[in-house]
């Protein structure tokens, strides 16, 4: 096995679950997620000769995300995808953040299936930031790089995503 390939296998292949998980959350289809991951690994291998080391996971997840977005565009779901993106950073309508009370956040028995459904239904921009932070536990800096947005935007989007998720779940009573 060549030196580059063995280095790639030891550094990038262990990130396979992370890659598949992100792809699956974004494209919401287990078969498409597999295709996405294969394409992402192909591209990652092409770029790897110049990868200067460090944590391969955020680097690979950035590639996975780009491949997911290529898929969205190719599926001609541009309209759906644009709607998802457009309101992600808009200021809230009532001019201030809603106050969260224990009553509105009544999460009784939070079941995995309910959580999965709620995340799946989040608009794309919120879903991706939430998954990268809460499931992949990337730093704000790494998320900013993966999504190609400023760190401040990561934080405000994440805050809204968390709130939205809890609102969805508070409807399951």
């Amino acid at each position: 096995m060549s030196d580059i390939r063995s280095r790639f296998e030891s550094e990038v292949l262990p990130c396979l679950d992370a890659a598949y998980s992100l792809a699956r959350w974004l494209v919401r289809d287990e078969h498409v997620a597999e295709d996405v991951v294969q394409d992402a690994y192909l591209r990652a291998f092409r770029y790897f000769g110049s990868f200067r080391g460090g944590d391969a996971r955020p680097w690979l997840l950035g590639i996975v995300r780009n491949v997911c977005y290529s898929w969205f565009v190719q599926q001609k779901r541009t309209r759906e995808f644009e709607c998802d993106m457009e309101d992600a950073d808009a200021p809230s309508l009532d001019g201030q953040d809603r106050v969260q009370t224990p009553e509105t956040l009544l999460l009784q028995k939070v079941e995995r299936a309910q959580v999965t459904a709620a995340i799946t239904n989040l608009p794309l921009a919120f879903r991706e930031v939430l998954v990268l932070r809460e499931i992949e536990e990337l730093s704000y800096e790494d998320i900013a790089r993966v999504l190609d947005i400023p760190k401040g935007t990561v934080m405000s989007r994440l805050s809204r995503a968390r709130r939205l998720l809890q609102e969805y779940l508070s409807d399951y009573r």
Partner: protein
Amino acid sequence: MDTDPMAELPAELKQNMTRYKAPPGLKRRIRYMLAQPPRTGWFSAARASWSRWMPVGASFACGALLAVSLMTYRAGMTADEGPIESQVVASHVRSLMDKHLMDVASTDQHTVKPWFSGKLDYAPPVIDLAQDGFPLVGGRLDYVDDRPVAALVYRRRGHIINVFVLPEHDARRPDSGVTADHGYQVARWTRGGMRFWAVSDVSRDEMQKFAAGMQAAQ
């Protein structure tokens, strides 16, 4: 009462967020894919096998066959450049067929050029010839001569011109010219330690004009 916008989610909620595991066959398929020799046809064949969601599945097979047939054709120049010419033509055709034309889409050379840093160990010169009627539209990583190279994408009316930039340390190849290969115009030249290959279906005159413009600007 929780008014802190950055407050963490409740632990019981986080615990029920799923981190999916890759299905068992996926790792095996990826390792198999990585084990293939990196020849030009590899990308076409590898992608065709799982490209269920690519809209032009049939064209893949055609692209792969064309790539293979072009690989075996030797152009009438220095014997050791024949395979490179075949490869760049095959890469050009494939970039159009599988719609993977660009990794970075921008008409701004100041966006395209830095995109390659960290992905290649050389910095391709990126020139915009919009004033001559050949605007830059973007770039991508491609594979030629078994190594990753920069491909710069230009447009001439409805036609695409791919320019492959190879770091060239061999001083014996200063020759330049335009040849025809399977209906495509192929221009080649050397400048500043780099070897350039431009491929397009524009006319011979237009390719000569393009190559002259690029060389004058470099």
